[in-house]
């Protein structure tokens, strides 16, 4: 009897892949567009297919990918952050001021990660425990975090050890390897009880709460992870330029939201996948590169970027309505 039931159900693995296939449905078009743009880019710039060319390209994508993930974690849990740019700046200046000091690269990285974790968890605590709207708290937070970055380093300066810059932003695709590792860690996190509650907390907080899910813990953890990812993006940007700049992160706030939404992450929480957010950030990154190679002026890039973002978000909506 029990055998009959178990044979009627799909096996665990089959179920898993069926769910994954369903989840990919929304971002199939995005993956296709990404692939087409990458092919176009490889035609314009054949150097992309060499090891160093691939390394350079993934390095220009890496910080955007990290902030997209940082924003996506929050949006999946039903939050949003307007402080990501400021957190990137803070991560960059902390890296540039600590790594040349007595603690070295390991100590500096630890300080960066810890600051991101503490700031993220504190923001999450304020939003969740004090029941304040995330968008306004992170708006105020962007002033506080940005101010802290200015206190750490009032003007561009500091230093990143040359060997670290060479390792992360040199001719080997180390950054891409790191991205793969981070994506795998994300998969692992989703398999933990805390990670599992993330989607539930974002999709239907009241229902999840009544089913015994620790919604508050899931959301605070999401803020903490988001803080760490943003701070790491700052560390990488500092390594790229070799020094710290207290204002370097500003553009990342809007780009992180754009990438996450392009990747199909819903504003209301619980909708979307991290691979979608990564694909969204890849689209933005390739787009900027391709437009540069086609000789667009920066002004035209702004305008094209605005139009493409609206188009990418609007077209699925329109198609859905026509269907």
């Amino acid at each position, binding site marked *: 009897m029990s055998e009959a039931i178990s044979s009627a159900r799909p096996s665990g693995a089959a179920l898993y892949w069926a769910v994954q296939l369903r989840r990919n449905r929304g971002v199939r078009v995005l993956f296709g567009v990404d692939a087409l743009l990458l092919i176009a880019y490889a035609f314009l710039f054949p150097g992309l297919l060499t090891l160093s060319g691939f390394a350079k390209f993934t390095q220009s994508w890496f910080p955007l990918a990290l902030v997209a993930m940082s924003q996506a974690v929050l949006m999946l849990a039903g939050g949003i952050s307007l402080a990501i740019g400021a957190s990137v700046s803070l991560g960059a200046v902390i890296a540039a001021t600590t790594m040349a000091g007595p603690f070295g690269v390991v100590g500096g990285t630890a300080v960066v990660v810890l600051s991101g974790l503490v700031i993220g968890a504190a923001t999450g605590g304020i939003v969740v425990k004090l*029941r*304040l709207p995330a968008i306004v708290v992170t708006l105020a937070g962007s*002033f506080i975090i940005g101010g802290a970055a200015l206190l750490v380093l009032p003007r561009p300066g500091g230093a990143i050890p040359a060997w670290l810059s060479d390792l992360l932003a040199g001719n080997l695709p180390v950054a891409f390897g790191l991205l793969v590792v981070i994506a795998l860690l994300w998969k692992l996190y989703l398999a933990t009880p805390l990670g599992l509650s993330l989607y539930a907390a974002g999709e239907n907080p009241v229902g999840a709460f009544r089913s015994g899910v620790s919604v508050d813990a899931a959301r605070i953890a999401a803020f903490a992870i988001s803080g760490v990812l943003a701070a790491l993006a700052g560390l990488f940007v500092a390594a790229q330029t070799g020094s710290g700049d207290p204002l370097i992160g500003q553009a990342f706030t809007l780009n992180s939201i754009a990438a996450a939404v392009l990747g199909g992450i819903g504003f209301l929480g619980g909708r979307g996948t991290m691979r979608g957010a990564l694909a969204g950030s890849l689209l933005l990154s390739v787009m900027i590169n391709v437009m540069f190679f086609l000789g667009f002026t920066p*002004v035209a890039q*702004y305008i094209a970027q605005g139009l493409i*973002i609206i188009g990418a978000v609007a077209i699925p909506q329109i198609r859905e309505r026509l269907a």
Partner: protein
Amino acid sequence: MSATAALRVKSIVTSRPFLTVLVVAIVWIGASFASRGFGAYGHLRYIVELAAVIGLVAAGQTFVVIAGGIDLSVGAIVTVSAVGLPLLSMDADPTGVSAIVIILACTTAIGFVNGVGVAWLRVHPMIMTLAMATFLQGLLIIIAGGSAVSAHNPLVAWLGNARPLGIPAGIWMWLVVSVGALYILHATPFGARLFALGANPVATQLSGVDVPATTMAVYAISGLLSGLAGVLALGMNGQGYVGIGDPYLLASIAAVVLGGTSILGGSGTYAGTIPGAVLLVTITALITVVNASPGWRSILFGSLILILLLLSGREAARR
């Protein structure tokens, strides 16, 4: 009879607009004791005059937020207005009215396009208005080329400098807009539709409200008022430059939230946004008095907004 009167008094005293006014009064009195010049009539008038620009932007933002959206392009629209207007001045029109009318029509049209994106293309308001801001930034670099432009428009100069009855023209303008905004929000069917739309868009649609038209009108109003704020900012500054409107984006959202309007839409009033705008300028003035470094100034500003939020903007508990 007296019981209902007491109830009414209680509801007014505990209302958000009243509490925000109270906070402003307390901060003003406290600051006057701490810093001699702060409480002088001229200084307080100057604070309110500065608040007028934020108040105008925040009026449009209040409409949008109550209707359940958000407008992140207001800063860019203020810049478009302040930079574009000087370029439109024509010798054939010595009063300068035509340039103002044209630029306001342009900013209203920009807001309308935002509304079309939100209502028809169903782009999330945050993405639509962000993309619009990006778009306008590119456009501004083309038309202004990065240099500051001076206004030679008599009406704009008058708005920035004149003081009919001893009160700056900008404050008069804010007063008129405030009365209009309060009337539209609380005494017209259109205002009632905004609250309904913010509270429950599906039910509003099913009740026969033309939701797309209402949404487009709301964003067009936001564009118009941001354009008006740009004209006033141009008058007070004497010249427009790329980035002149940037501070007003965050200030407008903060003023709306400090005034007790729910960022999720459906409830609130412009009556709270008015003292909210004054409060923000007061905070900035206080921080200037302290003479702190830019880093500390930024931290103070953020912390004070957070503290004020704690006093006001809490969401309902999950049950």
